[in-house]
Every structure is written in structure tokens, then in C-alpha cells.
């Protein structure tokens, strides 16, 4: 398993094996990385990519196998040794201190602890040079907490480059980036490779892997199941290698829409901080129909989700459930109206990290029979319910008593999905339901939403992924600065057409009637 002939091998992994209890996270993995090469490490969540890189970087010690960097064996278990050997890692969760400046973060750990001076002046010059050479614009004195996610990632990359890393490992670097930030990152990586650096790019996004890598290694269940030159493959084949089976794209059957279960007419909601409110939104969610909401994030999606989820009430216009305005409107009223919610941020608002799966499964229904009677919890019923979700929705976990913190994002999302769908909702509010999930989990969640639609639920699918919206929706609205486009039936719009609306074209002259804007 060598890189292209002729290139110097800078990194070689040989027979790396790592067990966590009964779980075999890495099974005899061997490969080499050539100088000036980008290899993509592709695999689903839990395939063992991050474990492998943590071994390489010294956070974990392998049970078996060796790592060689520039021909010299790397002592296991010491991040400092990896850094000294020229391996730099950009972690998926940034390891930056928010209250310190970018420069301070870059300097951390670069000099002996007992050195008398920080050496900030020389460092500043070097950082400026690296910023210029690699296209990593960051103000060195900016507080990291005030930087955007893309800028923070640049600080992380600068940290590695500042330590003269010759091998860059990027763990899911694009998971948190906008498309523009992603292309800027790729530009940086190309510059790095041109200067002779080697890159390991960990991802489960096929498009990016195809774009940036020269070679792809596919991991599945801890084993290296394939290695191909990127030029010799395509997205479809990579996807199959990754999940080990044919992938069927979710398909919508033709179905006549039912009655409108929830309607909004000319609704305004207030602005919340930087998030725009809704402005004159008219919308109908119909039974047996998926309504897709496309739009660049931060254009009022949160406001619409908050309104339907009961967190917000209209300041103007009207909302009707089954043709009548609700008496009062709150999250509890929304639940009582059989509105199920899949929240945007599963960690912050979807689950309680240190609660068990059982507790999380009944978060929304704990006060109802059979989970509680006369004010007493019936934990047996709750646990049975959790077990049912685990079985039906294929939630991989140690059991219902495990804390949900220990689950991967995909499994956490499956539990949330199960919790929402098992209540037999009439309306489903799915806000970014597949963000950050791997292909297997994405397909699973999407098929479940379609199944709910086929059973007669009205689904509102909010997504920043235009492909997803177009594939799953019966009708599509575009949201832009709190305003909603007309409904476009399935198949009537091209991606370019929707993209125009997402950029604000097509919306009439600024909406000025009523109080919201006059104020």
C-alpha cells in the first residue's frame, strides 16, 4: 500500500490495532502517506477514523502496530513527540482558549515552560508570514471567542504550521464551515501541498473528498476496506465502499396533499438579537406533504421553527391549527397539538447530555400516561419506551441506562427522531435533521420522515442543504430575511432558480405595510 511511486514516504502506519473493551476500533490498519499528497480518510461516524488519528497524534496508545514519521519510529502516547516530528493536528472540536488572543493560542506550548520570555515579537512576524503564504487571514490580537468558526479553524491551522508541521491532519474540518469557508480552506490546503506538506483529510462528505484528495482510504467498522486513487472512482462507488452496500436514494411517491393542518397568514414575529424575525409569512402545512424550507442560514429559519414549536407568538397576522386559532401558544400547547420537534441543535436543545437514554426519551412526555400517574413516574414504562425506540430506530448504545452524552451524533439524532415519531405526531418540525450525520444515518432519518409523511403527517423540513430540500420536498419555500417565497411545487424549480431566491432575487419591493418595519 504505497503512495504513487517516486514520492518520498513521510508517514507510515503499520498494523495499527486498538481495542476499547470488546470494541475493535482499529483493526490492523496500514498505509503510507507521500510527500505533497492529500489522502482522504473516508468512513462513517464510528468507523474508527478519529481513533486512528488520535493514535497517530499520541492521544491514545495503540495496542499493536507502529507509526513511522520521516523514516523514524514515533514513540507512542506522546503528543509532544508527534509535534516534534512534524505532525500537526486540527481537531474536530477546536482546542482553543476563547478568552485569549489568536497569537497567545498559537504560542501556547511552543517554548519551554520555564523560558523567561514569551517571544511574542518574533512570533508575530512568523505568524504574519505564514498567514500570507498560506492565505490564512487572522488578526493575531483578536480574542478567539470573538472570531467566526472559519477564523478559529485558521488559528488551529496556523498553530500547526507555526510548529513547522510537515504533515497536517484535519479531522472533519468542513463540518462547521460555510461553503465559502470550505473553498478558502481548500485553497489553503492546495498552497500547503504545493510547498511540500502532506495532508490527511478526514471526512464523510464525498464531494469534498473527490475535490481535494489524490487518494482515498475507506474505513469501515475499524478496518481499511478500500484504497483508490481519487481519479479512478466516483461519489457513488465511494459511498458504497463506505457503507458496504448499495445506497438507495430516498424516493417520494406521488401523493395527493391533504387538508392544511397549520396555516400562517401574514405573520410577523419580533427580531431576537441578530436573528431576524418573520415578516409577513404566509404558509400552509398540509397533511401527507413535506414542505421544504430552503435558505441560507440565519434568514429567519430559527424564528419560524420557534413559532411553530411554541417558543414564539405572532405579533401580527394569524396562525391557525385545523382552521382555528389556538387558545394559547406555548411549547406545551404545541406538544398538545401533536406537533413533534426535531430541534436544530441536538446537543443544546434536543437532549440533556447527562441524562440517560430513558430520561431523554420521555423528556417531552414524562408528565403523561403511561410514564407518570398521579404525579409518580413510572420508570418501567419509560424504560420500555426507550427500549422500543432503541430497537425500532436502530440506536446503537450500551443500553437505556447509558448517558446520552456517550452516543455519537447520528445515534443521538435517531433517539430524538424516535421520540418525535413514536408520539404519532400530526405535524413534524424537522430543523436540520441530518446535519453532521453520516450517509447511513442520513438515509435512515430521511426515509423515516418520508414514511411519516406517507402516513399523513405534515412535515416542515428546514435545511441549508439545497439538494436535500429538493430531493425530499413536495413543495418548497425559500426564506430570505424573514420573508417567504411563494410555494414552488416539486420539480418546478431548478437549483439555480432556487439559488436566486436564496440570494434575495424575486422578492418584491421591501414589505412596508403594518407595524414591523414602520417601528
Amino acid at each position, binding site marked *: 500500500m504505497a503512495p504513487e511511486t517516486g514520492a518520498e514516504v513521510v508517514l507510515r502506519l503499520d498494523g495499527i490495532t486498538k481495542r476499547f473493551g470488546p470494541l475493535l476500533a482499529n483493526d490492523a490498519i496500514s498505509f503510507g502517506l507521500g510527500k505533497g499528497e492529500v489522502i482522504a480518510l473516508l468512513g462513517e461516524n464510528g468507523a474508527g477514523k478519529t481513533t486512528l488519528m488520535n493514535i497517530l497524534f*499520541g492521544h491514545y496508545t495503540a495496542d499493536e502496530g507502529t507509526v513511522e514519521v520521516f523514516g523514524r519510529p514515533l514513540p507512542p502516547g506522546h*503528543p509532544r513527540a508527534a*509535534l516534534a516530528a512534524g505532525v500537526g*493536528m486540527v481537531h474536530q472540536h477546536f*482546542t482553543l482558549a476563547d478568552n485569549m488572543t489568536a497569537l497567545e493560542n498559537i504560542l*501556547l506550548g511552543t517554548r519551554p515552560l520555564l523560558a523567561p520570555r*514569551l517571544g511574542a515579537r518574533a512570533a508575530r512576524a512568523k505568524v504574519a508570514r505564514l498567514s500570507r503564504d498560506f492565505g490564512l487571514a487572522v488578526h493575531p490580537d483578536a480574542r478567539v471567542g470573538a472570531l467566526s468558526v472559519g477564523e478559529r479553524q485558521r488559528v488551529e491551522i496556523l498553530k500547526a504550521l507555526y510548529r513547522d508541521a510537515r504533515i497536517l491532519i484535519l479531522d472533519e474540518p468542513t463540518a462547521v464551515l460555510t461553503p465559502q469557508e470550505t473553498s478558502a480552506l481548500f485553497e489553503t490546503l492546495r498552497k500547503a501541498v504545493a510547498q511540500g506538506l502532506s495532508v490527511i483529510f478526514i471526512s464523510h462528505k464525498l464531494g469534498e473528498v473527490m475535490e481535494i484528495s489524490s487518494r482515498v482510504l475507506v474505513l469501515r467498522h475499524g478496518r481499511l476496506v478500500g484504497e483508490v486513487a481519487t481519479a479512478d472512482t466516483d461519489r457513488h462507488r465511494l459511498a458504497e465502499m463506505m457503507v458496504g452496500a448499495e445506497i438507495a436514494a430516498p424516493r417520494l411517491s406521488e401523493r395527493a396533499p391533504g387538508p392544511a393542518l397549520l396555516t400562517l397568514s401574514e405573520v410577523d414575529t419580533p427580531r431576537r438579537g441578530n436573528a431576524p424575525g418573520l415578516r409577513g409569512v404566509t404558509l400552509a402545512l398540509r397533511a401527507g406533504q413535506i414542505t421544504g424550507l430552503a435558505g441560507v442560514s440565519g434568514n429567519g429559519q430559527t424564528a419560524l421553527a420557534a413559532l411553530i414549536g411554541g417558543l414564539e407568538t405572532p405579533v401580527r397576522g394569524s396562525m391557525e391549527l385545523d382552521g382555528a386559532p389556538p387558545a394559547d401558544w406555548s411549547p406545551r400547547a404545541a406538544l398538545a397539538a401533536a406537533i413533534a420537534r426535531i430541534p436544530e441543535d441536538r446537543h443544546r436543545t434536543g437532549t440533556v447530555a447527562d441524562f440517560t437514554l430513558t430520561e431523554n426519551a420521555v423528556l417531552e412526555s414524562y408528565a403523561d400516561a403511561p410514564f407518570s400517574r398521579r404525579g409518580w413516574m413510572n420508570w418501567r414504562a419509560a424504560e420500555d419506551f426507550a427500549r422500543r425506540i432503541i430497537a425500532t430506530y436502530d440506536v446503537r448504545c450500551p443500553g437505556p441506562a447509558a448517558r446520552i452524552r456517550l452516543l455519537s451524533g447520528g445515534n443521538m439524532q435517531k433517539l430524538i427522531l424516535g421520540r418525535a415519531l413514536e408520539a404519532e405526531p400530526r405535524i413534524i418540525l424537522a430543523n436540520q435533521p441530518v446535519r453532521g450525520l453520516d450517509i447511513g444515518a442520513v438515509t435512515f432519518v430521511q426515509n423515516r420522515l418520508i414514511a411519516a409523511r406517507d402516513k399523513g403527517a405534515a412535515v416542515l423540513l428546514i435545511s441549508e442543504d439545497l439538494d436535500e430540500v429538493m430531493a425530499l420536498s413536495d413543495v418548497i419555500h425559500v426564506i430570505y430575511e424573514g420573508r417567504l417565497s411563494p410555494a414552488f411545487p416539486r420539480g418546478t424549480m431548478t437549483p439555480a432558480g432556487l439559488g436566486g431566491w436564496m440570494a434575495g432575487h424575486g422578492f418584491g419591493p421591501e414589505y412596508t405595510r403594518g407595524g414591523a418595519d414602520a417601528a
Partner: protein
Amino acid sequence: MDILEIILTASFWAAAVRIASPLIFATLGELICERAGVLNLGIEGIMVIGAFTGWMTVYLGFGLWTGVLVAMLAGMLFGLVHATLTVPFGLSQHVVGLGVTLLATATAAFAYRLSLPEVTSPPKIVPFQPLPVPGLSELPLIGPAFFAQTPLTYLAFVLIAVVSVVLYRTPLGLALRAAGENPASVEAQGLSVTAMRMGAVIVGSGLMAIGGAFLTMSAFSSFFFEMVNGRGWICIALVVFGAWRPGKAALGALLFAAFDALQVRLQQTPMGAYVPYQVFLMVPYILSILALVLMSRRAEVPAALMVPFNKGER
């Protein structure tokens, strides 16, 4: 006007600086702990231990500086207990801190009774004497206040600068602050969060103990059980007041000390005849609370303060 007259006397400022000195030691100690991410509520007890051991060492015939050293080492020992329980074991910093305070206070009382079983009033030692700086101590107001103090006071003020420089100008200080902001960032550089935090708690506790020793070896000349009297808790507030910055925290200590010196003097004015003295005693605390409310609104708490770090946990 009485207050103005008081403020214009040299003795008022000299008293303020003297009262501030132990607070500065202990506040800097607490600040170091908190900057590394550990709240050290053992401060009150560690000050008691420092006061007792320093005084006892001198009483047993050793030199004053030996006393300071012994007090510091005793404080570091209790710091080690605190650090072991809170850092590698990750126990609740509140519970451990209060426990250390109780343990240290009781240890001091126990050791006192063992060593001096039949004494009714505690024996006196010869404390540090004022050491006027030639020339500078002649300056009006500032001279007696800042340049005619005991060596320990000078040490306190030197330490403000030392702690500032170490925290902000050295790799060690950077790593220490990072351990309190995001321990994962320290870990990712292959440095030990555990060592960083334990070191900070131990060194910080040593400073707290010197603060306690100041009371028995510079401000007074013998040891009383109640002499620390909540100063440790004041220092915790001063760290917040100073927004976790050494200079501002020391300024806070001076401010508090000035209020304290003021209230003693106000009691002796005609006002003292009809206002109960407890009201005057309250003054520094009330003013401190007000200052705290006003100053600490926008303070940036170390992000990982009181968050135990377990390697490998998400």
C-alpha cells in the same frame, strides 16, 4: 469635614497599605489558582495555618524569614491536599475547599493546644519592624504609606508585578491561563493539565499562607484563633472584583483596606458617639459589595473555572 481630614493624614494611608498587605498575598494566591481553573475555598483555613506556623516557628527561636518559609511550606502542604482531591480526582471544588478550610483551622487549633497547653494569653514574638526606604520615605503622604513599611509589605507589592509578568509574559503563565480557559488546548500541546493545575494550587496556597503569616509576624505579634476573621473570603471577592487580573485585584485590596482604615478612624469622630460601632464595621463590606456589583459585570471568568478535566472525555 471629618472624612477629608482623615484621608489627608499619613497614618491613614500607612494603615491602609498595612491592612492591604495580607490581602494582596492571599488574593494573588487565589488568583493563580483560579486562573488555572481551580476555585480554592481552602484559602481561609490556609491563612490560619500560615498565621500559626509562621508565628510558632519564630516563637520556637527561629528567624522571621524562616517563619515565613515554614508558613509557606505549610500552606503548600494543604494546597497539595486540595489539589490532589480536586485535580486528578476531580471532586467538587466547593466541598473540598470548605473541607480544607475546616481541616486547616482545626489543625492550627489542635497544634496550638498541644504545644501551649497551659497558656491563657498567647505569647508574643518580636515581629518584622518597619524598614523605611531612605529618601523615599520622606515624601509627604506617600512616603510613610508606601516606603516606611515592613519587608513583608514590600514583598507583597513586588509580588503583584512578579505575578503579572509571569502570567502575561512567560510561556508558563500562558500555559497556566490556558489550563483555566480550555484545558484541552493544553492537552493538545502535550502539556499536562494536571501538573499545571496542581502546581498553581500549591503555589497559590503558599502565597495565601504568607498572607496569614503577615498577620502574626508583621501586623500583630501573636496568634489568636479568630484573627483571620473572614479575610480569605474577602480575597475570593477581590479576585472577582479585579476581573482575575493581578493589578486590578491588588487595587481592590487597597481600596478595601482604605475603607477598613477609614471606619476605625470614623469611630473616633463625634459621629462615633451616637452611631453604633457595628455600623462602621459594616462599611468596608457594604462598599466592597457595591464595588463588586459595579465592577464585575463585564468580568471575564476563566472559562474552565471549576470544570474538572478528565483526559479523553468529550
